[in-house]
């Protein structure tokens, strides 16, 4: 667009896309390259940890469970470059080996959340007025116990453990996704696209299967990416509170929970596993943002 200075009104119809303008947008090649850096970096971070989950031995040759009392509480340095914990286990190796359980828990929780959201969202979106308001009420109740509260109530009933964590975190994230999916379906149902297909003589089921569902589900990729980061955060929070994976396992949240006791003595025990979680969640957020951006263009 030729005249998009930031102070110009965005709603001006005269600034609507124009054939001659598309070409001009390609001008800043360097800037275009720079705009790719965030998602490339985010992708690299996620790829690294996926690799760690698939083949931890490749990235960290040390045994994450090997106890070495003599080297307990070593600060970050040559031998253990992220330091050691209270039993002398290598923090870096534990982080790498912790990738698999942490990512798996996150992915499983995301899957549970999205599956639940899909059921609720499509029911509300397609099911007609009464079902829609019914699902709306259920969502309202779930929203009334946001975040950890719902997860904690669920754990109180079902007892702690990895399986419970997965379901609890999925349950926590489901209402938000369900609302997005519902909105998407309703917007599509009322779109001119559906009207045009009707005019062309397509049946309702054809329109549903060919035009509405695929377009409604496209944002799921964005949601799943974002959700993975958030699910890892939630799961780690539960582990940190002592409700997740049992202690000796090198899972990120559990490592944090163990390090909490020695916060003043060995800061690296808490800092690095936490940083890992932050990195993964941030990478997932950045990646989902650029996916969304690409989707809307």
């Amino acid at each position, binding site marked *: 667009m030729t005249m998009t200075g930031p102070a110009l009104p965005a709603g001006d119809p005269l600034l609507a896309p124009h054939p001659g303008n598309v070409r001009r947008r390609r001008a800043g090649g360097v800037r275009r390259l720079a705009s790719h850096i965030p998602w490339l970096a985010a992708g690299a971070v996620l790829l690294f940890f996926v690799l760690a989950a698939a083949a931890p031995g490749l990235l960290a040759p040390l045994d994450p469970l090997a106890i070495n009392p003599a080297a307990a509480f070593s600060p970050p340095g040559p031998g253990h470059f992220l330091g050691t914990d209270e039993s002398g286990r290598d923090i870096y190796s534990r982080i790498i080996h912790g990738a698999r359980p942490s990512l798996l828990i996150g992915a499983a929780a995301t899957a549970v959340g999205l599956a639940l959201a899909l059921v609720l969202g499509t029911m509300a979106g397609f099911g007609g007025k009464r079902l829609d308001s019914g699902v709306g009420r259920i969502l309202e109740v779930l929203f009334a116990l946001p975040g950890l509260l719902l997860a904690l109530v669920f754990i109180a009933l079902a007892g702690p453990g990895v399986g419970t964590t997965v379901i609890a975190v999925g349950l926590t994230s489901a209402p938000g996704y369900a609302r997005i999916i519902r909105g998407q379906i309703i917007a599509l149902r009322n779109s001119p696209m559906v009207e045009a297909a009707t005019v062309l003589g397509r049946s309702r089921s054809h329109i549903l299967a060919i035009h509405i569902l695929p377009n409604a589900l496209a944002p799921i990729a964005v949601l799943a990416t974002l959700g993975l980061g958030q699910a890892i955060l939630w799961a780690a929070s539960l582990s940190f509170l002592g409700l997740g994976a049992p202690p000796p396992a090198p899972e990120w949240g559990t490592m*944090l929970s163990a390090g909490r006791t020695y916060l003043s003595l060995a800061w690296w025990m808490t800092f690095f596993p936490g940083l890992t979680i932050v990195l993964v969640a941030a990478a997932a957020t950045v990646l989902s943002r650029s996916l969304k951006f690409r989707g809307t263009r």
Partner: protein
Amino acid sequence: MSTPTATPPRRRAGPGRSLKWLLGRLGGGIFVLWAVATAIFFGIRMIPGDPAEAIMGGPGSQASAEALAAARAEYGLDQPLFVQYFGQLWRLATGDLGTSYSLKSPVAEVLGELIPPTLLLAGLALLLAWAMALALAVLSTRSGPWGSAIGSGLEIVSAAVPHFWLASVLIMVFSTSLGWFPPVSTNAPAGLVLPVATLALPLAGFLGQVMRDSMEGAQRSPYALSARARGESETGVLLRHSLRHAALPGIALSGWALGSLLSGAVVVETIFARPGLGRSLLQAVTARDIPLVTGVALFSAAAYVVVMALSDLAERVADPRIGTP
């Protein structure tokens, strides 16, 4: 051009409308509380095993036979399910939240003690988050493309930083290394700084992101251009126009924000060893003290309903287009 552009008259306040709004909100709130109570009631009974044992702390609690018998008597567990259910609803409706077996005192009393410190914490955090989010929104729109890049970077990071890690880092820096603030929270101002900051920072990142979007929209809008063309300064455009537009989504999200603060309070109160709703909920969950868990859940849901109603009211005050109920 082809759609009818009838302009509805602004909806004015009237006693009938206000009452309708209030009743609607009240009905919705009661429904939410009923649903939470019902879900927990049937949740307990869906778990395999003895519900009395579940109420008394699960299979690991090794409650004595007398205690289990007492629980059965109190909750009428030997009666038919629907009698139990309506009995439970009736007790809750009359304000009898039962007895916390882990604390050995009535749940209502326990909540009475726990609510004020948590509300203080959450309220301060909400204020701080609002202030930071507005500052972030203003800064990132005023300092050009770089400011906006730094702003969105900060937002992504703060959306990805969990409370537990932020609290740990803050303690390491400001307590262990610098010694400015105590690592254990008290109600003294210095003891509140770290917990409040921990809760507020991620929330500020999220609110800031939303506010920045609408602030940027306002700054680029035709009405801002009109204002500039009238001779309005950039500060004037910001204060008289953009800030208000930026605040609207923040207000709308306040109900959600309070929920996320209560959820964060579980972690923060635990780390800073601060008495409150969150820490006690965790203890109750660990001990599987169902009456206390039910009490905290009902209070949180009620708080959410109230705050949603309040933020709806505030939105109507800030946005004259909606009109007061």
